[in-house]
Structure formats: structure tokens, C-alpha cells
């Protein structure tokens, strides 16, 4: 039974690779004057910060603080990025006018904005949100724009021939056709936003996962650093799982390919 064998393999291989990962980690941590904590030490530290507050907050609070910054920025980024991308893809004048500026600003890493934004907005919540916004708006704009460019001209022609006006061509044909590309952009945006928040918090924050990592560095607490790194990875993974589920709801036609 080839099918059965495939299934067992696809369940077994991830377990093997995870196991190898922990063995390697353990082996590296045991080496002489290693700076790395063992998996066990990391786990203990993780459980400890869930109960004992650092900077007046336990780990779940820190995660929530980071997550809230990301989500606020992320929703602004969706609204701004999709409208901007649609305008770029739909309106030739707008594209000619704005695209050169966008092309110059686009390659600047969001982290490079941090000093300037802190100078402008201080160290409250706003600067972190803005930095995450910068990091997550770009992939949404790019995906929306390229999704609109790549629409099958036949679909537009079919609409024109049926008598669809320009507005209908946009709302009823171009936009639905672009939804999968937009969703792909949103997924990239969320993970890029999550990276940006950690970076922003490492530079100036009192709470958040990025702050915890810096605290670990300052106090030589490597277990804290590694525990937070793991948390960052897991949260990011969960976010993208949620988004993939959401894509199935938002564009069922993409996920019902049984041919």
C-alpha cells in the first residue's frame, strides 16, 4: 500500500526532524563554556516567566502587548495597502505620479525608520505601530498591484462584452480576481509585521517580547533570550495558520480544486 506508506512517512518525518533539532540543541548546549541554555533550562525559564512578572508583566501580557501593536498596525496596513495597490493598478495617472516615489521608499528596510520615528513620535505606542505599519504595508501594496496587473484579460473582455461598466469591471471582476494575490500579500505582511515589532521593541520599549530579549541580553540570561525566540516562532506560526484558514473562508474557489 503505497498510499499508506506515504501517510506514515509524512507523519513520521516531522517528528524525526524535530527530534534531531532538540538533540543537536542539547549537544551544543552541553559543550564546554557554551552560551546556549539546554532545552530543559529554556523550558523552566519559560514556565517561570509565565508566572513571575518581568517589568510588571508576565509572559502572556508581553505577548499580548506585542500582538496588539502588530494587529493595530496590520489592520491599518490592510486598509491602506489594498486601496493604494488598487489605485496603482487601476489608475494610470496615479501610477505614473506615485510609483517612482514608492519605488524609492519601498527598498528601505522598516528598521531603518526606527531612529527617525522615535525622534518624531517619542517612545510611546505610536512609534512601534508606525514601524510595523511600514513593514507590513509594502507587501500588501506590491501583491495587490501585481495581482491586478496579472488578471486574465479574457475575464475583463467577457465582462465588457456583457455590458459591464468601468465600476463593475473593478468591483465585480478585477477585485475578486485579485483576492488570492491580496491574501498572499496579507500573509507576508503579518509575518513581516511581527518581525518589525520585535525589532522596534528591542530598541525602545518597556514591554513586549522584543523587550524581553533585550532584558535577557542585558542580564546575561540566555535562557530568557532563547525562550522568547521560541515564543516568537510559535506565535508567528499560529498567526499564519489562522490566516490560511481565513483564506479558505474568503476564497473558497481556490481551495476546492479537486480536479
Amino acid at each position, binding site marked *: 500500500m503505497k498510499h499508506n506508506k506515504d501517510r506514515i512517512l509524512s507523519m513520521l518525518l516531522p517528528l524525526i526532524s524535530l527530534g534531531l533539532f532538540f538533540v543537536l540543541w542539547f549537544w551544543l548546549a552541553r559543550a564546554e563554556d557554551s552560551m546556549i541554555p539546554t532545552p530543559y533550562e529554556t523550558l523552566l525559564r519559560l514556565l517561570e516567566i509565565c508566572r513571575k512578572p518581568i517589568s510588571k508583566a508576565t509572559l502572556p501580557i508581553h505577548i499580548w502587548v506585542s500582538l496588539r501593536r502588530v494587529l493595530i498596525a496590520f489592520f491599518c496596513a490592510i486598509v491602506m495597502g489594498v486601496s493604494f495597490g488598487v489605485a496603482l493598478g487601476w489608475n494610470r495617472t496615479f501610477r505614473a505620479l506615485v510609483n517612482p516615489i514608492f519605488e524609492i521608499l519601498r527598498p528601505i528596510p522598516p528598521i531603518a525608520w526606527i531612529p527617525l520615528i522615535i525622534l518624531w513620535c517619542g517612545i510611546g505606542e505610536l512609534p512601534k505601530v508606525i514601524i510595523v505599519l511600514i513593514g507590513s504595508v509594502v507587501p500588501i501594496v506590491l501583491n495587490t498591484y501585481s495581482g491586478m496587473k496579472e488578471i486574465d484579460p479574457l475575464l475583463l473582455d467577457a465582462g465588457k462584452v456583457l455590458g459591464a461598466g468601468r465600476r463593475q469591471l473593478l468591483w465585480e471582476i478585477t477585485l475578486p*480576481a485579485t483576492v488570492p494575490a491580496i491574501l498572499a500579500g496579507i500573509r507576508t505582511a503579518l509575518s513581516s509585521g511581527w518581525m518589525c515589532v520585535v525589532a522596534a521593541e528591542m530598541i525602545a520599549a518597556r514591554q513586549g517580547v522584543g523587550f524581553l530579549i533585550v532584558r535577557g541580553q542585558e542580564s546575561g540570561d540566555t535562557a530568557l533570550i532563547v525562550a522568547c525566540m521560541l515564543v516568537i516562532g510559535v506565535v508567528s506560526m499560529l498567526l499564519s495558520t489562522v490566516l490560511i484558514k481565513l483564506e479558505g473562508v474568503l476564497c473558497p474557489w481556490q481551495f476546492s480544486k479537486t480536479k
Partner: protein
Amino acid sequence: MREEAKVKVRNLTKSFGELLVLDDISFDIKKGDFVCIVGPTGCGKTTFLNLLVKLIEPTSGEILIDGEPADPKKHNMAFVFQEPSAYPWLTVEENIQYGLKIKKMPKNVIAERTEEILDVLGLRDVRKTYPHQLSASLEQRVVIGRAFALHPDLLLMDEPYAQMDIKMRYYLEDQVIKLWQRTGSTVLFITHNIEEAIYLSEKCLILSNKPTTVKEEKTIDLPRPRDIALPEFIALREYVTNQIKWW
């Protein structure tokens, strides 16, 4: 007395850059006619239909539908492209309804036409599925259904049955004839299959090689339903085939 022309084509010329595709074409199609356009491969048949529905602009000359410049927003026309063009995000029945919704038909008409089309094209079992789940030939039936549902005054079809197997093609040929007879629409049907052209049309428009002109308008006056084995049918088929030859 001259019959009323549905489509009037006057001195139609189209060139893409240096390449002259259509050269000074003029003809009329009368209301309620069923015209097949045949011609050698790559002679600009598709270009002609695209001009007719304003997807591209002519270099010179004009096309009038009911005496007015062609405009899909004004005229009740439907187009079936060669390639399947169903909307991937709409289910089969939503695809069929889309043209009717654009024309802002009343709800009960939309519901009624949907049921009619699902039956005529045998799509009842797949009404809730998405086009990606269908084979190319089934998807094309959805697109044909979207066009038929409009009961168009002017139905334009660009080799719509090229991907179908022979049984489905015979069936759909009869369906397009039924629709034409029932709704009194004017049909323009492009095909490279001469037998299909003779079977369907009242008139065959034979196009020449590029730069394309109308070589001949051949009236097909066989009684319906037609029999492809009849000597007259075969004679006509051979005649048209010879007219298309360019060697």
C-alpha cells in the same frame, strides 16, 4: 423590399502596425439570420468579432448594430470566446446569472432563466461547484450558458465548440439552433469546421487569406433539421471547402 439589417459593416479595415488584417470589408447581416464565418486559419476571424463588440477599435470603417455604433452596454449581445472564460470566484449558477445581473433583469426572470439553462446545458448536477473543479469542456458549457441566458438579440460565438467531443458538439449545435429559432436572435458563429458551418447556418461568409476580404457570401438553403449525409449537404460542404483552399 430590403430586409432590415441587424449588423451593417462598412469599409471595415484593421491593421496592427504594418500588418493589414482586414481589408475594406463591407456586408450586411439581416435580422434573425444565422451566419457562419469560415476561412483559412489565422485570417482574422477572431479580430473581426472583437471589432464587432468594441474590444478593439477599427483602423477605419464602421460597424453599425441596429443602425447605431456597436456598444455592448446598449445592445443585448452575448459573446462566447474560444477559451473558457467563466469567472473562477463564481459558482456555475452564479456565472450563468452574471450577464443577467449586469443587465439588471428582474429576480424572477433570473431565477427562471437559470433553471432553463441548467437543464439545456446539463449543468444541474454541478450548479454549486466552481469552474476550477470542471473540465475545460464543461467550463465552456457554463460560458455558453451565460451567453444563452441573456436571450441575446445578437449572439457571437468564436469557435465555441472546438474543445468538445463530437457527441457534445452535435448536441450543442442543435441547442444553439433551438435558441435561435425560439428567440429570433441573430447569430454570428465562427468555426473552422465546414460541416458545422453548413449544418448551422443560413448563410456562410467565406473569408479570404490575409489581408482578409469577404470572398463569397454563400446562402445555405437546406431544410431543417439538416442531414449531414444528404447529397446536397455534401455538395455544399465540398464547395465551401474548395473556396477556402488557398493553394
